[in-house]
């Protein structure tokens, strides 16, 4: 695969209340964004285990985007704080594993931020394209 035609595979882990709803809103407003990301819906971002993220990288994901509610807006009170801590730790771990930490991104996108959702996916996809495929960059 030549650099120019590299189409990254991206997994999106989204909470049902905010980011997934934002993706719905982006759709309803017909905002276009690249199709590289396949979303998986959770009740809360705090359900996302580090091993799920690592599992995604092991199985060929070039990037993982986590989406949750803004601080203070979590449907389950403080799940997003747990997520924030977990991702911060995981970023350190990725470094140890030789994975560029920019491949894992955490974003707070509320149900009203369809526009933000689109922008984040566009930017993240571009970033992963620039980083190139995981294969060959070492896992």
């Amino acid at each position, binding site marked *: 695969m030549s650099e120019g035609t590299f189409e990254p595979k991206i*997994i999106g882990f989204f909470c049902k209340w905010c980011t997934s709803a934002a993706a719905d809103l982006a759709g309803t407003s017909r905002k276009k964004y690249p199709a590289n990301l396949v979303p998986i819906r959770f009740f809360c971002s705090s359900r996302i285990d580090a091993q799920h993220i690592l599992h995604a990288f092991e199985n060929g994901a070039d990037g993982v985007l986590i989406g949750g509610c803004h601080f203070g807006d979590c449907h389950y009170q403080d799940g997003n704080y747990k997520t924030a801590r977990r991702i911060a730790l995981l970023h350190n771990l990725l470094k140890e594993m030789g994975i560029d930490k920019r491949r894992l991104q955490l974003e707070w996108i509320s149900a009203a931020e369809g526009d933000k959702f689109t922008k984040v996916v566009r930017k993240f996809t571009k970033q992963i394209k620039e980083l190139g495929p995981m294969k060959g960059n070492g896992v």
Partner: protein
Amino acid sequence: MKRIGVFICHCGINIAKTVDVEALTEEIKKYPGVEHAENYKYMCSDPGQNLVIDAIKEQKLDAVVVAACSPTLHENTFRNASERGGLNRYVCEMANIREHCSWVHDDKTVATKKASLIIKTIVEKVKYDEPLEPIQVNVTKRALVIGGGIAGIQAALDIANAGVETILVEKGPSIGGRMAQLSETFPTLDCSQCILTPKMVEVSQHKKIKLIAYSEVEDVEGSVGNFKVKIKRKAAYVDQAKCTGCGICYEKCPIKVDSEFEEGLGKRKAIYTPFPQAVPNKPIIDTEHCTFFLKPGKCKVCQIVCPVQAVDFEQQDEILEEEVGAIVVATGYDIYEPEKLKEYGYGTIPDVITSMQFERLLSASGPTVGDVRRVSDGKEPKRIVFIQCAGSRDKENHLEYCSKICCMYTAKHALLYKHRVHDGEAIIFYIDVRTAGKGYEEFYNRVTDEGATYIRGKVSKVYQDNGKIIVLGADTLSGKQVEVEADMVVLALGMVPTRNSEALVRTLKIQCDANAFLTEAHPKLRPVESNTTGIYLAGAAQGPKDIPEVVAQASGAASKAIAILTQDEITFEPTIAGVDEDLCSGCGICVGVCPYNARELDREEMVIKVVEALCQGCGSCSSACPSGAAQQRNLIDRQIERMVVSALEEN
């Protein structure tokens, strides 16, 4: 292996325009586990739903995936359809190929490929989905209301009026709370007691309300629908059954002490009811001051004069056990400690008083029968300085928050003072005047119209100089420092949650914020619910608020309780997190992670037990569990892994 049916919707052209539905159907048919795949123009229409129902029956499907729009729109529709086809509703899932795909992509090849990935992830999910039954809990149709102020009174009356038996527990000797102490209420100037006491009487006479005064909740076990509550009835040393409330005991009692109800401005006896309209109107003995208890065996005047021999010095605390299905917490507020504001001289300058003391001075039933008099010499003060935000909005030294009611009650104080003392001068120091409420700005205008002087600046110090009270203030609008000589100073103190209520909060296993106000389950959408299902919040215990807001919130909490207590059983979504007891090591990590106290460590078996009625299914525990024992139903680790793999599949 499950037989899975996939139903792909065109959504008119909404999906079909950018997704090659036919090619997609053919591809999905080949995916492992998929027994049946078809597409239809409008899957949510009756004929569309019938396709699903028929296919379930004819193809003997075990699970269904509908690839269409967002599950928020039609998940219920298709789960109902699946049920009609004879399937459990939890083995039907939706793949969102509209909002998440056809509407956001232009290229048909690309969109079709993504749609197939989305569908495959959901196919993987339903492979592991289990049939689930909603969780059902039997309901004890009784309510407990903790706190007998206006919040608790309102909640108890509302629940009882819905036909549900209600226990109202009050810590003090009488219900009525803070509202009973107030003079008149803003902005209408209704007499507080006049509107409150009928409600108090209604409580005492209501067939469905069991009033337990001078008592405290000691222990709460169980969960929504079935709480077991232990209530400590403190010894009153007066047999409540015999006592007729005639009052001879406290007339004859020789011991006088400062009355809490009168905020120290009046006296009560050692055997007393807090105020004449008390409910229940039965006295209690204050053992800290009663001669009999200080010098054992002495005095006994009350016992001697009681015509019905109700005084019982031998009485003991008693524990009552009750079972209830829901709890309303209405523990109320105290005012901020004025002693902490040393620069304002409370405690050293007798005529610097609190806002609550001023309420008592204004009250027709108060120590001065409603006349405004100085504490020091009983004279009528000709100039009163009111200091707003006394200790409020002061993150550095006192309370960070705004107590919301002080602007309005200070305006009321100024007005009532002007009504009592026509030539009196009311000077109000303020930072901002906050009058957000129906009729409030109008009320404030009335107060300024009637001659109260508002000065925008926070007072720095109050001190005595050669017999006069000097208030050091500023008028920021004119840029001047102002020194005011006053006859009396009233500190508009903020609200804090009732002191020593933290123990109760722990007992109830609900949460409170940094200021000890009770935390609601969601600040916007669930403002009267605690984080624990079945426990509801009412009144100033949850945050500063005025009477109408308290009453509204109390009714809200009551209606939440009624919604549960009028059913024989309540049902909950079954997609909660369970425990695999074989895997669980009892480490207890999930207990700390759970925001709802739904997980408890069984120390005998060293495994976690789940209180199913409390779990809200966030899955925090599943990701925190090191052994994989805590699995969220129908979203187990294995499912997520398979979904991830299928999402990354090359095609």
